[in-house]
């Protein structure tokens, strides 16, 4: 069942129950909220984001300025790009622990292609994308052909990619000034009003727009949801689930490599020692965005909001003078609330 159908179905259920409310007034407000959220998983995270923005604006006047808001966007760009790939994987009821490792390793490879092998920027970039894609494809191969659980597969490849990353880079950082300008182009900012948008953020937003469309309106998108919802049923319905899964891991690998490129622009360097937390950060963004860890429910719009929630909290709490330990505490708490909410919404009576 594709999301469009799913959405239509639940919308129908929601309207039915809405009419039920008129006749049976004892139905609680909570139940109504549960139904609305079930039909529109994005509403919950969106509400959290809006409330957080309003709250932080009240606490600190510097928070709600074009400059600061575009800063938050720039700060979450890399994680959001990774979380986009992660969303696709999680929609199929999988998980990708290697997301950050692929991104950082791809960025290091691109940089070294330029400096050690003297490749022109375009070639290094495309080859870097190809490497990221290949790493994703390896995950996909192990999941679909060797039939290992995604958690185990990506736990293994995570370690492998981080090790190779250290070997290839010799733990040395490559400076942006030693690379062709295309490599650091993603960090260039263009002022739009008071906003300072980076090309990296624009690429990220464009990718989100594309996958929003692809998941909603293409057969592939519907197959991704169906595979995640119930793989056995999807297979019986004639969907080649292995092919879907393989494509998801492979596309995710490519997205992580794009994230690696954006990372080079942001740091004006390619460092093998950054990004150790990116794997979990990307999962955090997906979970906060309302995509279910059990697959088949959620979407990329929520993930973008989820990434922004993390960014807004980190930035807002820092501006408000909250100690770093408590910033982590707040985000951890949000994750637990998000997962509890997901569980609650799943219990909706149809």
């Amino acid at each position, binding site marked *: 069942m594709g999301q469009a159908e799913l959405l239509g179905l639940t919308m129908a259920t929601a309207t039915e129950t809405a009419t039920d409310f008129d006749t049976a007034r004892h139905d609680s407000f909570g139940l109504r909220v549960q139904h609305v959220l079930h039909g529109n998983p994005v509403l919950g995270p969106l509400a959290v984001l809006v409330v957080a923005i309003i709250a932080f604006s009240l606490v*600190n006047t*510097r*928070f709600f300025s074009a*400059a*600061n808001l575009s*800063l938050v966007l*720039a*700060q979450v760009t*890399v994680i959001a790009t990774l979380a986009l790939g992660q969303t696709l994987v999680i929609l199929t009821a999988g998980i990708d622990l290697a997301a950050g490792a692929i991104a950082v390793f791809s960025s290091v490879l691109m940089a070294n292609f330029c400096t050690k092998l003297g490749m022109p920027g375009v070639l290094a970039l495309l080859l870097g994308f190809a490497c990221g894609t290949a790493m994703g494809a390896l995950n996909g191969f*192990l999941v679909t*052909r*060797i*039939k*290992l659980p995604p958690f185990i597969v990506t736990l293994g490849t995570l*370690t492998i990619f981080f090790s190779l990353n*250290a070997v290839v880079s*010799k*733990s*040395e*950082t490559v*400076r942006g000034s030693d690379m062709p300008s295309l490599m650091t182009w993603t*960090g260039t*900012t263009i002022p739009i009003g008071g906003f*300072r948008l980076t090309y990296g953020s624009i690429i990220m937003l464009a990718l989100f727009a594309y996958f929003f469309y692809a998941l909603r309106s293409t057969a592939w998108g519907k197959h991704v949801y169906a595979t995640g919802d119930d793989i056995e049923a999807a297979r019986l319905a004639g969907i080649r689930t292995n092919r879907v899964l393989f494509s998801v891991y492979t596309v995710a690998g490519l997205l992580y490599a794009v994230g690696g490129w954006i*990372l080079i622009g*942001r*740091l*004006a*360097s390619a*460092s*093998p*020692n*950054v*990004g*150790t*937390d990116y794997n979990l950060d990307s999962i955090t963004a997906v979970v906060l965005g309302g995509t279910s860890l059990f697959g088949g429910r959620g979407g990329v719009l929520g993930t973008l909001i989820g990434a922004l929630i993390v960014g807004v909290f*980190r*930035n807002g709490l*820092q*501006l408000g*003078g909250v*100690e*770093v*330990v408590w910033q*982590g505490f707040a985000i951890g708490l949000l994750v637990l609330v998000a997962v509890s909410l997901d569980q609650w919404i799943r219990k909706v009576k149809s």
Partner: protein
Amino acid sequence: MRGSELILGRVCPALTVMTLLLGTAACGGGDDGGGSGGGDIVGLITKTDTNPFFVKMKEGAQQAATQQGLKLQSFAGKQDGDNEAQVQAIENLMSSGAKGFLITPSDSKAIVPSIDKAKQQGMLVIALDTPTDPPDAVDATFATDNYQAGKLIGQWAKAKFAKDGKQAKIAMLDLNANQVSVDVKRDQGFLDGFGIPVGDPNRIGDENDPRIAGHDVTDGAEDGGRTAMENLLQKDPSINLVYTINEPAAAGAYQALKAAGKDKTVTIVSIDGGCPGVDNVAKGVIGATSMQFPLKMASLGIEAIAKFAKDGTKPEATAGKDFVDTGAQLITDQPQAGVEAKDSAWGKQNCWG
């Protein structure tokens, strides 16, 4: 039916892949403990083998071991904090009959029982860079005086700001939220050197001096440095002096300052003396940095074990300190009166990484 299908369909291919991988790993991983002749065995256990600081340490240990006719076996954890791998490394060294080893403890407390066992077997144990807790669990510690390293850049910044007649607004870019001793000492040393009275010298962030604009954490990496600097600049745009725990964090902070158009007006100070950091001093990105000497730590450590193996003498701590101070050297191209420093050209010849 399902059971056999499971075994044939899933477990067999998995085992095949694992065997293949293990086979490759076994073939490829032969360069550890790289052979330098027959002599006595000495060990080197670092936190990771990806950090350039530890890479340099390994290089220093290898050089010294070759000179002393010792056989070096080196080990490292998977990541900082990987105590388990270090415990295993000590066990391996004990069973191979090593004379002693150098260790950079990932977990200063948790490693102590293993060190005790090694000492009971008659091995000389030297901590490098990071002291154990308690410090006398090892026979000696060869390390940078991190408080002194922080103090040097603090004194330099104080002299520079006094000369320019500017009032400082300071951003403190620390390591993480755990109040790690290296982090605390550098942070507090800097404040002391700059002339800001420190509160509890064992705590970061308990000072109320209005010159401190704020603290944030970086994990000692570029991405953390950039985000932390961005957020602190939002909090207080008048920041004109940035203390950074290490040079990668400084490089990240510089990107944030550059994006805000403040790279020319804000001074960054740092600690480490890695080659990319010294390059940044030469380029004016970092105003001054305190250089540490990991190669020296390791080579002096190996020499001490060689001496111990010959005649049983143990190394003695630097006068007035509870460790052997391997030195910290201020590197800057803008020397200030009253603060001893070397320039970036000297720095490039002596940097690590």
